[in-house]
């Protein structure tokens, strides 16, 4: 899914910008990684899904028994803001940058909200 790629790129760029967020390895989490699951239980979690199947959200709830503090879905951002759907699964084209930036803005806003609630 090309939306999955937007989810990964936007999240990764945020990780590079800030030192108050980390990423959980989703496949490891889903495949039974106890360290990843414990981390998600002990820390506030935001899911960034690519499409409406929302597998990250479902997986975190189902396998980690964790209710994420916030859930973001790229396909909903595309629909709401009338962005063009990315064409490539493997690379960000210049026309996708606007969507990546909007996704980053939304993720950052949710991080701040979660941090405020946690304080």
């Amino acid at each position, binding site marked *: 899914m090309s939306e999955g790629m937007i989810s990964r790129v936007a999240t990764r760029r945020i990780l590079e910008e800030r030192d108050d967020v980390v990423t959980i*390895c989703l496949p490891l989490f889903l495949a039974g990684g106890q360290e990843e699951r414990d981390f998600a239980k002990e820390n506030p979690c935001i899911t960034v899904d690519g499409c409406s199947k929302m597998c990250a959200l479902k997986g975190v709830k189902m396998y980690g028994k964790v209710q994420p503090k916030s859930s973001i879905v790229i396909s909903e951002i595309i629909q709401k803001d009338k962005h063009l759907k990315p064409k490539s699964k493997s690379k960000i084209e210049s026309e996708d940058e606007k969507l990546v930036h909007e996704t980053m803005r939304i993720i950052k806003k949710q991080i701040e909200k979660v941090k405020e609630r946690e304080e």
Partner: protein
Amino acid sequence: MSMEKKVAVAVCTGMDQPLATVSRYAGYYVLEKLRPDKTVLLCTPALIGGVKEDVTFAKENPVLVINGCRERCCEKIVNEAKGQIKAIINVDDVFKEHKDLQPESRAKLGPKGMKLAEIVGELAAKKVDEILAEVNNSGR
């Protein structure tokens, strides 16, 4: 008349390690460049999320797994969903044979990492051909 089988390619979706990124780029290389008409990308998070169409596809079509790191999560997830795994490539094993092709980072593979992804992709393309030859022979 039976539908022509395609190989479902399952790649690592992890963001933690450069070898996960190599797994993904190798998968895209097979899917988009080397064997576009013979392969379909499998969404591994959807398998574990129980999305019916994805689970059914993995059960009804041969699966090629490209694991990123030694955790082998991709393989575990496909097995958990009872997908038909026909071949497995471990990027960390390929990397052991090409130690000079160290990817730059998880975000940017760089020329060496991309070369490693192409080598893995070429191995994957061979596996795709072998899998389809086997599937087609057994169907005769």
